[in-house]
């Protein structure tokens, strides 16, 4: 018995895969499922988060629809994956935000931008919004550095806490029946596999998106997005180091390290998210999970907005638009950080956790969880 219809259907499909095994060489999902004969909810959530949605198994499967076995592993695992985000959310009360994610994030964004605008106008000199670009202290004329640090620092720490709690739930649930032994080399292996998107290549032929040609570029778009995001994050971190370690407050000249990292990251992030949005629009309808679209698009748009407003701020920072752009950019970034534990961002976290578990399972095998033993004994007693 499974908690949801999606899990029940995933169990049915995975059981057939386990009897076939032709897809074993395509990615991590199939070798992982072969380690089990029975699949608890946690096992299915683990497999769902291990799946990179490359689409190869759908096109390679002799049992895809219209065959009566109707296997569509990428699609059913996408559904289970989406449900798992809500299931592992912390605090639990916020699980429903995954259901209407696009709308919620749009509202959060509007609210967050409005707050910055109102704050800048009402707390400081109302006219400063349009004149701050001439002030010697730059941004900080509109919003003191300490205020920015407090707002973003606390939101960031909360996001980290919420994500960590989510991973904890994920780990407990996926190890409920069979446990893995943790070790550092497996974590390193998982980070490499996640960072290179090793399993988003259809087993070597390339992955699939709009049709049965393995010519999809999502891996490239995703790399641009992810590493662009990291560069932007590095730009901010570098600014913080400059500020506190060296006592060099912003603004910086364009050729200085924080802006250079930010510009490069912003451009990569813009190109990557644009590519991902395009790929999403072109996706083969058989592989598309409509319920996911809102959440996926919201997250990609948030990243795109972060990049575009950041770049605009960089290039129009010496015009009267600076104040407005700053409010919008800070609003977008705040909404992005606030929504991190409650949107598509979590896919990277759970996927990396799933890859860790996979690497550990490959290295050491699975052990029966001690918690599961009383159950087995109960069953034996019932038989006796």
């Amino acid at each position: 018995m499974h908690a949801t219809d999606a899990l029940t259907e995933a169990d049915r499909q995975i059981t057939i895969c386990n009897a076939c095994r032709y897809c074993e060489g395509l990615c991590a999902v199939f070798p992982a499922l072969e380690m089990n004969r029975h699949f608890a909810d946690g096992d299915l959530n683990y497999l769902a988060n291990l799946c990179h949605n490359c689409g190869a198994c759908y096109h390679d499967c002799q049992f895809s629809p219209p065959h009566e076995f109707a296997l569509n592993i990428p699609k059913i695992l996408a559904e289970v994956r989406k449900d798992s985000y809500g299931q592992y959310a912390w605090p639990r009360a916020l699980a429903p935000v995954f259901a209407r994610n696009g709308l919620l994030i749009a509202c959060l964004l509007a609210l967050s931008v409005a707050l910055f605008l109102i704050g800048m106008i009402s707390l400081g000199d109302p006219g400063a919004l349009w004149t701050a670009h001439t002030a010697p202290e730059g941004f900080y004329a509109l919003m003191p550095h300490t205020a920015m640090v407090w707002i973003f620092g606390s939101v960031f720490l909360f996001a980290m806490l919420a994500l960590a709690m989510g991973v904890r739930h994920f780990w407990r649930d996926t190890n409920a029946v069979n446990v893995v032994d943790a070790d550092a080399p497996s974590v390193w292996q998982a980070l490499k596999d996640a960072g290179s998107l090793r399993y988003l290549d259809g087993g070597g032929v390339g992955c699939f998106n709009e049709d049965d040609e393995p010519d999809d570029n999502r891996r490239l778009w995703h790399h641009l997005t992810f590493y662009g995001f990291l560069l932007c994050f590095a730009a901010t971190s570098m600014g913080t180091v400059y500020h506190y370690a060296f006592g060099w407050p912003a603004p910086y000249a364009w050729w200085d390290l924080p802006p250079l990292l930010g510009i490069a990251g912003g451009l990569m992030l813009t190109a990557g998210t644009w590519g991902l949005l395009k790929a999403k629009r072109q996706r083969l309808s058989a592989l598309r999970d409509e319920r996911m679209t809102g959440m996926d698009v919201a997250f990609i748009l948030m990243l795109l907005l972060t990049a575009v407003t950041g770049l605009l701020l960089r290039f129009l920072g010496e015009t009267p638009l600076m104040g407005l752009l700053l409010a919008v950019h800070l609003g977008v970034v705040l909404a992005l950080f606030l929504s991190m534990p409650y949107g598509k961002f979590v896919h990277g976290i759970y996927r990396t956790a799933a890859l860790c578990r996979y690497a550990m399972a490959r290295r050491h095998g699975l052990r029966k969880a001690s918690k599961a033993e009383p159950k087995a004994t109960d069953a034996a007693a019932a038989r006796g």
Partner: protein
Amino acid sequence: MAEANGHAPEIPDLPTRYDVIVVGGGNAALCAAITARRDGASVLVLEAADKFYRGGNTRHTRNLRCAHDEGNEILTGPYPVDEFMDDLMRVTKGQTDEDLARFTLEESKGLWDWMNGAGVRFQQPLGGTLGLGRTNAFFLGGGRAMLNALYRTAEGLGVDIRYEAAVTDIDIEDGFFKSVVVEAAEGTFRAHGRALVTASGGFESNIDWLKEYWGERAENFLIRGTSNNRGSILRLLLDKGIEPVGDPTQCHAVAIDARSPKFDGGIVTRLDCIVFGIVMNNRCERFYDEGEDFWPKRYAIWGRLVADQPDQIAYIVFDDKSMGSFMPSVYPAIEAETLEELAGKLELDTEKFTATVTEFNAAVREGHFDTDIHDECHTEGIDPPKSHWARKIDTAPFYAYPVRPGITFTYLGTRVNREAKVLMQGGTPSANIFAAGEIMAGNVLGQGYLAGIGMTIGAVWGRLAGEGAARHARN
């Protein structure tokens, strides 16, 4: 064009006259089409199935057996032609044309490179098939992935492919092919060609044809592969004077889950648990030694054994000790806490059922149980005996799988020469009709089976047929 006047006027001609027309859409057909196209011929492939079901039984395959003198990144060691030949002679018990067989196996040495060149990707042997890692190259993603690669290559080369295009007649004059009549979604048409490659499989999904040899029993057969192998092309060729090869009454049959679909259930319907339990028919009688030999050596006899039972059904019965010891399959085992309850769920006579199990249990002489060797666990004093791996069925829960004969392929085909040309009655080769794959496999494989050899035969003879057809068209 004088001969065209003789045709019924209502069938329109396809405007293009192709050099090579390939009937079928599986491994052999695509190997022929790609080879002929690379040799400069214009090629039309006529596939009876739609795009999803294209490729017949190739969709369900997973590997290709090929001879090789050295191992490589996938194949774990050398597999010389002589060893391949020994394996073939062992399974066919000599039911083969030794000359053609050796020729096939020698030609198979080129398949690894050819397949790679046609975009096919390989992978390490799958879990549970390590024994085949040296001899068989596994397709990455299975047979459908392999087919997709061949289709992409063929399309890239400019081979014309028509789906849902069933050939209903072939115009042959004195062993010379002229045209085919095709029923397609867009209507019936006649396609003229300079050479014909028939690569359209056997007749195992034609239940009426099977009934000619098996009687009403064939109604209860399940077909493991495509529903399109109705043998219509084979029938046409044989009726038009091409010489047959292979025993028409024979087919490769294994015991598969009785709950499987009538067609296309494929690999997942197989059951590997007979050696762990006992098998009884619907009168609760055992009928064959379940532990006679290792499973890989015996799995292919059980289809026939079950076909000989009343209503062509049997039940594999085992207990909790064996659960998890064999490959999982598509449907769950039927489970019960007592033997009586299990008999009820199987709708069998409870008394007879428990008596058969009890009698078996009493006859078991247990020892060290080991499925890797011919172990000492056996029965005494019952008939049939269970010679190895006999353990009492006494630990709840009890399990059963219902099984029926699952037909993999048939052996009847068209006789060919070394150029893949079909032979007319009397032995004269046709000038321009070629055959490849299951439709002629009986030349090489007259009996038995060797994992991956269907693909060997399809690829080797597909390439020969394509080469010969293109050569004929050029001259």
